[in-house]
């Protein structure tokens, strides 16, 4: 059975977000099936990142409703959404430049424990997370970079660290904003394999421009255009949809696979 037939992990109903008279997200309905990999695609300015920010609480919707496992999470602040099991990565790498890679993962591992409030204890308390942090760094191929400051990691490795941090939160839903953006082919392959490896037991939503990545990972695809949902459906169905081909190539020739 495909996960697409199962219950929804994350849904959005009638989501609207206005920015000073400009409607970035317009009446978006989205159903992300539990355990699926769901890709959001669409041209620049289609509202993908805004939608991400709405789903994770970084923006409050002008109208509409967001549900996680059937519970209303509309308007919750980002830290609450994160604690409910929704982890995200950022489109533009967002790290703590002067802290080591391991510290990033330790901070993520600590966040659910409440240890962060202990101002009267030594920070060595956090060494209890260092073994698990090491495993996660190994998993994303940063095993040798634990002591490197995040600011001095190469671009592709920063993206990998973003992924390690998100995984450290052990999320039910993982939202990845362009996880392969700006990567070389080798790094793209490794990231795709990694996402494929960690999707078990999780729901993954990813914004992705690279259609070959979408093809290799996604069960379902939502195509956004000018803030609206153009098409939503299983990958195989969406890629041959004439409206999608039109939107991506400006004509009905070729297939969406060719589009980047």
């Amino acid at each position: 059975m495909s996960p697409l037939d199962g219950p929804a992990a994350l849904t959005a109903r009638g989501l609207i977000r206005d920015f000073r008279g400009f409607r970035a997200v317009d009446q978006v309905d989205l159903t992300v099936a539990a355990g699926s990999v769901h890709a959001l695609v669409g041209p620049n300015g289609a509202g993908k990142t805004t939608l991400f920010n709405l789903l994770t609480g970084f923006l409050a919707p002008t109208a509409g409703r967001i549900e996680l496992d059937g519970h209303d999470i509309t308007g919750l602040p980002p830290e609450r959404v994160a604690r409910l099991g929704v982890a995200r990565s950022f489109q533009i790498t967002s790290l703590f430049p002067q802290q080591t890679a391991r510290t990033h993962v330790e901070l993520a591992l600590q966040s659910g424990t409440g240890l962060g409030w202990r101002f009267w204890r030594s920070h060595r308390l956090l060494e209890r997370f260092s073994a698990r942090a090491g495993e996660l760094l190994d998993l994303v191929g940063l095993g040798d970079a634990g002591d490197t400051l995040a600011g001095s990691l190469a671009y592709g490795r920063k993206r990998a660290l973003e992924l390690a941090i998100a995984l450290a939160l052990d999320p039910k839903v993982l939202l990845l904003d362009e996880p392969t953006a700006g990567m070389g082919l080798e790094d793209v392959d490794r990231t795709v394999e990694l996402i494929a490896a960690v999707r078990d037991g999780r729901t993954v939503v990813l914004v992705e421009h690279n259609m070959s990545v979408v093809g290799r990972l996604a069960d379902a695809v939502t195509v956004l255009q000018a803030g609206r949902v153009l098409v939503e459906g299983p990958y195989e169905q969406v890629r041959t949809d004439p409206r999608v081909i039109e939107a991506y190539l400006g004509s009905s020739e070729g297939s969406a696979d060719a589009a980047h």
Partner: protein
Amino acid sequence: MTSLLLQRVRTPRWAGWLLLAAGALLALWLPNGLYPAVAVDMLCWALFAVAIDLLLGYGGLLSFGHAAFWGTSAYTAGLIAAHLGVPFPVAVLGGALAAAALAAPIGYLAVKRSGIYFAMVTLAFAQLVYFVANGWSSVTGGENGLQSVPRELFGLDLSDPYYFYYAALPMAALGLLLAWRIVHSPFGRVLVAIRDNPARARALGYPAHRYKLLAFVLSAFVAGLGGGLFAVAHGFVSLDVVHWTTSGKGVVLVVLGGIGTLWGGVVGAALVVNLEDQLSQAGFTLIGLVTGGIFVLVVLLFRRGLWGSAVALLRRYSRL
């Protein structure tokens, strides 16, 4: 050992202990080298500066209203000491707790802003506290100040500031230790993370506002220890303790010593308090002009402050 994240380059452990021992010896010797009353003032202002640095250096929040906490604690400690006859450390502790209690609602509103807006909100509340202190003269003495605050400690005679210094030193040391502990705690790590990238910290599940609020309250408590001690040391609380220039002086001490260095505030306080004393002894009347000039020079020449630059220099040479 990678968790010394607040130090970009690791200093050897022995260097830290050596500095600590030197600092402790200096603190013990201090009232023999200069006027004991001046030495006591240094302790008070050092606590105040370290409290402001806790917020500014580690939380990225510039408070321009810490006089509210310094002053509230000074009045509270003064009143407790005058009316309850308890040992002075209890009065100081009571003052610091009152400052922390006041910081909770102010901080709740202030931490929702950042940058210059945070500074403005804290300044506005501090001005409010100033007008209350000025108007509520039946309690605070208004412009006449709060008179005859006793220095009670189990019947010991502490009227000589030389002995009072040694009675006050443990209390100041505990305040500094608390600040050091906070900075090097799991909480301190999260606070720095929030300072550097609030959006990322929130995406990790850390409620940034609440962390900043706790930092604000803790900072007010440490500032309150300084203010309470100041009241007992002088035996008198003047309206100056809640004046905005007191907030400004605290920030100047931190910038002089070095933002985000913790001990920089101690250095800044020692320097400025001593200088002010020397200048007033010499009959100089434009003290602000001299300290202001030094402030400008330090800001221009030592971007990291005196302590921050000294530490950076030491590190560079120790690696050669």
